[in-house]
């Protein structure tokens, strides 16, 4: 919590590359969370939360600890099944969404606590992101013939591009369990990118990183959004990062939506200042 107060001043390098100078890239609404209510036993993690995500934008969900941010992300990709409400995605309504449906329709994600396949190499981890895109039969794959061969080469090429993009060539054969934290986060992003997602969900992509790692990660997020046109929904504690990166911001507090708008609107919203930013700013 402390670093969120100190960070805005320190996090200037990404400001220039932020929302300024990226007009016309935001398109139609691709995802709507509709009146999501989620209870764990007696605790309401989310109550009647609605918001939307537009194609091509960087959408942030912020809020104090326990505000329901991660729950919201888990509802979107189907890990949690809310008691009420539905997820509308690319023209279809799901109540609830399921992880398999989400993944096969182009929703990829990373986790707050890194969830990688620790025994597998960087390359293999990122390859798993392509699993849903492989169509060859098992026999073709096992014997490395026909489609099995051409597909493997094609996916491998794509994965190598992701590896180049994230600048992790040096560790491609290393089991990820041995990598430092910042690199593991990057590999996790790589696995999500390998799926060529329509919508990328990032759960605290910069949690626990030092300044340099945060700058790298901010750069990657902006690049992903700009060059690949990937829509990004992210949760982040670091206010400097959020304000720089985001096109629009949703603020949650105690499971309810407090505000929704551009970084400037949110920054000047009195309810938000009281509940959250008021603590960080003087």
């Amino acid at each position, binding site marked *: 919590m402390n670093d969120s107060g100190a960070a805005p001043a320190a996090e200037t390098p990404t400001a220039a590359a932020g929302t300024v100078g990226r007009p016309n890239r935001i398109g139609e609404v691709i995802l709507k969370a509709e009146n999501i209510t989620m209870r764990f036993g007696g605790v309401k993690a989310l109550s009647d939360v609605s918001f939307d995500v537009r194609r091509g934008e960087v959408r942030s969900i912020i809020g104090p600890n326990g505000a329901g941010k991660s729950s919201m992300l888990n509802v979107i990709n189907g*890990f949690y099944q809310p008691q009420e409400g539905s997820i509308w995605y690319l023209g279809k309504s799901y109540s609830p969404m399921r992880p398999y449906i989400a*993944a096969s329709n182009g929703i990829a994600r990373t986790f707050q606590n890194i*969830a990688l396949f620790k025994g*597998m190499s960087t390359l293999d981890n990122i390859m*798993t992101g392509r699993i849903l895109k492989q169509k060859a039969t098992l026999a073709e*794959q*096992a*014997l490395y013939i026909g489609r099995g061969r051409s597909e493997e080469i094609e996916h491998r090429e794509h994965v190598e591009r992701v590896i180049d993009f994230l600048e992790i060539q040096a560790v491609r054969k290393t089991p990820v369990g041995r990598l430092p934290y910042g690199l593991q986060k990057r590999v996790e992003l790589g696995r999500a990118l390998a799926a060529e997602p329509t919508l990328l969900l990032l759960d605290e992509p910069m949690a626990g990183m030092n300044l340099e790692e945060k700058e790298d990660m901010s750069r990657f997020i902006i690049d992903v959004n700009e060059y690949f046109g990937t829509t990004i929904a992210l949760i982040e504690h670091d206010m400097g990062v959020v304000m720089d990166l985001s096109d629009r911001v949703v603020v949650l507090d105690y499971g309810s939506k407090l505000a929704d708008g551009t970084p400037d609107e949110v920054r000047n919203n009195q309810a938000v200042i009281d509940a959250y930013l008021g603590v960080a700013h003087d």
Partner: protein
Amino acid sequence: MEAFAGLFGIDPFDLWFFFEVLIGGLMSGVMYALVALGFVLIFKASSVFNFSQGVMVLFAALNFVGFIELGLPIWASFILTMGVMILLAFVVERVVLRPLVNQPHISLFMATIGIAIFLEGFGELIWGSNIKPLEVGIPDDVVFMGDAMIQQADLFAAAVASVLVLVLALFFHYTRIGRALRAVADDHQAALSVGIPLNTIWVIVWSVAGFVALVAGIMWGSKLGVQFSLAILALKALPVLILGGFTSIPGAIIGGLIIGAGEKLAEVYVGQMLGGAIEEWFAYIVALAFLVFRPQGLFGEKIIERV
């Protein structure tokens, strides 16, 4: 062979006799390896030590021999039994694994003990508890290599095991389901997030383990008859796993060979000094030594603990 050694004493310099014992041991090792394979499969894909694998071997053999006794041809019995094992995989996934998802490994392990007890009782209920001979046309002559006598059935078992291992290795390393299996073994949540359907994977892996159990059951059944002690014999796979590593398919094979050859050689050459019957516990002593010096086994994944 033990009886032979006990009765006549042995000439320690008879090389052909040594070969005969060695090869006999390696072949029985293949049989252990067949059972160990089933354990490895399920452990790889779900980090669950499936205590019921031994009973699955028995259960598969019981069904197989049961169908044959009903007058069905061998191929039909094989397919039907495979059907039963796949059905079992579905039931296990639905009734046991799914409700226990995200529970500690020990709970799942206990559940597999439950499956073992259930299967043993269920098998007996349906097919009775008599020892049944199994005759599927595996050759049972002997061949001579020099002066060493080798059972044809053992050679046959070795050939079957080799093919099985080759197929499984290809499956695990080069297919998307193989990659998905390894992913599921590592991290359930992450696997879900890239779109791997956990439940389907479990059904597949239990079915494959069921298939391996069926093959092992037929091999063991032809050798010893289908009887309930098969389930206990199958626990010899434990020291094999400790040697080979719980996550390695080649490890299961090599571990099996070492245990098989080791215990036969020890019985023949050392056993008589200790009064015999060391074959029964030799494997466990080897396993114990491994636990002390190399707990991940010969080929297991080294455990890296970050502090």
